[in-house]
Structures are given as structure tokens and as C-alpha cells.
């Protein structure tokens, strides 16, 4: 009887330790798990022309302080825009209704995040509200395309091919 008691005690503590570890792995090392026990949240939506490579779970920040995360990214086939659902901490519920949301890049080549700049209205956004003013992601390829287009246009405008020819390849570098 004594032996079976220590045996069950050992088995029990092993199983308890194992499940505690599983719980730790799923809740403490991932961001997903924290949401179950985290502070209460509320949700906003915003429509963007282009979200670039914004990912679900990307941070939403205001003045550089993280106030929530991107919950869902969807495509609206009526006006051909990306619909981004933001899940914000209930603590930060004083965001003016005329605030604007922009997509920024962390560092030069880092991941995308959403920055909210406060507006001046004295009414605040509530759960399921919509942010009207948005600014799309900065897409590096488009910018390069624009620079190249401007460059060739200005070259055509100059219309003096003799000195422009040797200089042009230097500039593109």
C-alpha cells in the first residue's frame, strides 16, 4: 500500500509538471495565448488601398506605444480595398473619431505595423467603429517605379541627347 502511494504520487507530479509545461508553452511563449487572459479588448476596422505585407498579429501603435494588434486582414470586393481589423486594448479607448491610421515599416526592411495618429475631435471611437482616414503601405517597388518614370520623363524633356547619354547610366547607379 505504501509503495503504491509513492508511485501514484510520482506519476501524479510528473503528469502535473508535464501539463504545466504544455500550458506554459502555449500561453507564455506565444502572443496568441496571452489574448485569452489579457486585458479586455475592443475592435476597430480600417480600409486601406494597399496593405503591403502587413501580417495578422502585427502591432498597432500610437506615438510608438503598442496599444493592440492586427486581428484580421480581409479583402472588400465592392470597393477593392483591404479591410484590416484592429484589436485594441480596452485601456486605450480615448481615440478621437477623426484619427488616421497609416502603415509603417519597422526599420528599413522590417515588418509592417499600423500607426495611429490622434485627431482633434472630442468624440471617441467605440467597439466596431471605422477609421476613415488611412494611408497605405509604402511599397518600395512602386517608389522605385515612380523614380524611374520621373527620371526618363525629365530626360525626354531635356532633349539634348549629346551630353545626356554618357551621364544617364551614371545617375541610374
Amino acid at each position, binding site marked *: 500500500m505504501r509503495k503504491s502511494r509513492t508511485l501514484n504520487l510520482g506519476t501524479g507530479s510528473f503528469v502535473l509538471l*508535464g501539463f504545466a509545461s*504544455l500550458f506554459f508553452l502555449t500561453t507564455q511563449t506565444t502572443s496568441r495565448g496571452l489574448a485569452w487572459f489579457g486585458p479586455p479588448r475592443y475592435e476597430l476596422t480600417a480600409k486601406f488601398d494597399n496593405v503591403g505585407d502587413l501580417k495578422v498579429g502585427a502591432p498597432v501603435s500610437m506615438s510608438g506605444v503598442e496599444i493592440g494588434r492586427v486581428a484580421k486582414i480581409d479583402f472588400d470586393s465592392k470597393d477593392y480595398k483591404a479591410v484590416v481589423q484592429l484589436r485594441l486594448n480596452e485601456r486605450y479607448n480615448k481615440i478621437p473619431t477623426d484619427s488616421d491610421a497609416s502603415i509603417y515599416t519597422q526599420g528599413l526592411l522590417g515588418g509592417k505595423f499600423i500607426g495611429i495618429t490622434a485627431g482633434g475631435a472630442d468624440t471617441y471611437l467605440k467597439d466596431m467603429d471605422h477609421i476613415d482616414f488611412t494611408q497605405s503601405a509604402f511599397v518600395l517597388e512602386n517608389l522605385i517605379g515612380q523614380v524611374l518614370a520621373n527620371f526618363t520623363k525629365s530626360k525626354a524633356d531635356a532633349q539634348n541627347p549629346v551630353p545626356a547619354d554618357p551621364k544617364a547610366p551614371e545617375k541610374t547607379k
Partner: protein
Amino acid sequence: MFKELWESFTDALEGLGSVVHFLFRLVVHSPSALLRFNLISQQIFNSGALSLVIIMLSGLFVGMVLGLQGFQLLQRFGSEEALGTAATIGLVKELGPVVTALLFAGRAGTALASELGLMRATDQISAMEMMAVDPIQRVVVPRFLGGVISMPLLAAIFCVIGIYGAQLIGVQIMGVDSGSFWSQMRAAVGLKDVMEGIVKSLIFGVACSLIAVYQGYYATPTAEGVGRATTRTVVTSAVVILFLDYLITAAFL
């Protein structure tokens, strides 16, 4: 020569077939074995709780090595804060399940195989059959289920201890900021990564326990046969674990 090759090929196929057949027998007997839970609980103690010390020690050292190596590498790019992410992803997805399964095969698998092999050699299994007690149900299935239940728990414990080992080296000794260590980890590690680790450890648990139990049950009933069964358990388990690891990783990509 071709005939010999062909024979060894058919032998291998036959072995694979009998392992699969054995697995089916174990699965069929599992529900009734679950009713006698104290038998399984005893085996969880034998293969799980008794492996705890080696698993925890190895986890600590693997984590510490990851912390040290990761720090040296990440320092070159000035991103030491990513150490938590690197160590956790490495542990949870790959090192945790694989190293735990290899240790499990060495610690618990050999014990299972030699125990069953010795039972076979000393005619205990035949005696049970004489008394109309099904040895599969009474002896083999509890050992198999005990291993299957223990393995994911051991892998999870290994990962947690490893993460704290990496934290010990990275944060306490090398001076990585504790807040960014944990917050970057939480931002980068997804539930999918953890699920991959759990699925891996479950499948490895089934494979390791099955191989150990099969080798022991069908061991040649001599001293030499038991020794060979034990060796085969470790070798086969190691190869099968690494092969399955590749398959599961590819499936989760």
C-alpha cells in the same frame, strides 16, 4: 547475389508489415486497457517520471548551449534581442521533440524492450497464455500507452527547461535585456510552432514505444536475443525519429 538482395528486401517488408499488424493489435486492445488505469499509471511512472532527471538535465544544457551559440551569432548582426525567439523556435519545433525522443528511446525504450524480452526468455509470456491471460492486453498495451502518454509531457518539460536555460545564459550572464528577450519571443512564436512540436512529440512517442515493445515482445528468447533486441530498439528508434522528423517538418511548412 540478386536472390540474397531480394530476400533481404522481402524480409524488411515482412518486418514492416508485422510492425503495422502489431500496432493494430495494440490499438484494438487499447480501449479495454484504459479501464485498468493503474497498470498504465505504473508504466507512466516507469517510462515518464523516471526519465525526468535525464530529460531535465539535458534540456538545461541544450538550452544553455543554444543561448551561448545564439548570442555569439546574433551579436555579429547586433540583434541579441532575437535570442529568445531563436532559442524558443529551435527548441519547440526541433530540438525539444527530437532530443527528447532520442533520450526517451535510450532511457525508457531499452528498459521496455529488455523487460519484455526477458519475460519472453523466462517463459513468463507463455505462462500467461497458458492461464488464458492475453499478454498483449495485460503486459504490452499498458507499456505502450504509458510511453505514448509520457513522451509529449517529457518533450514539453524539456522545452520549458531549455528556454529557461537559454534565458539563464542570455539574460543573466550575457546581459541581453530580459524584457525584449520575452517580448520578441512572444511576438514571433506562433501557436502553430508550438502545435508542430506537440504533434511531433506525440508521433515520436507512438513510434518509440511501438518499436521498443515490438522488439521486446518478439525478441529471440535467449540472453543474446534480449541484448540484440535492446540494441535494435535504440538504432531503429533513432533512424525512424529522424525520418519522421523530416516528414512532419515538411508537412507543416
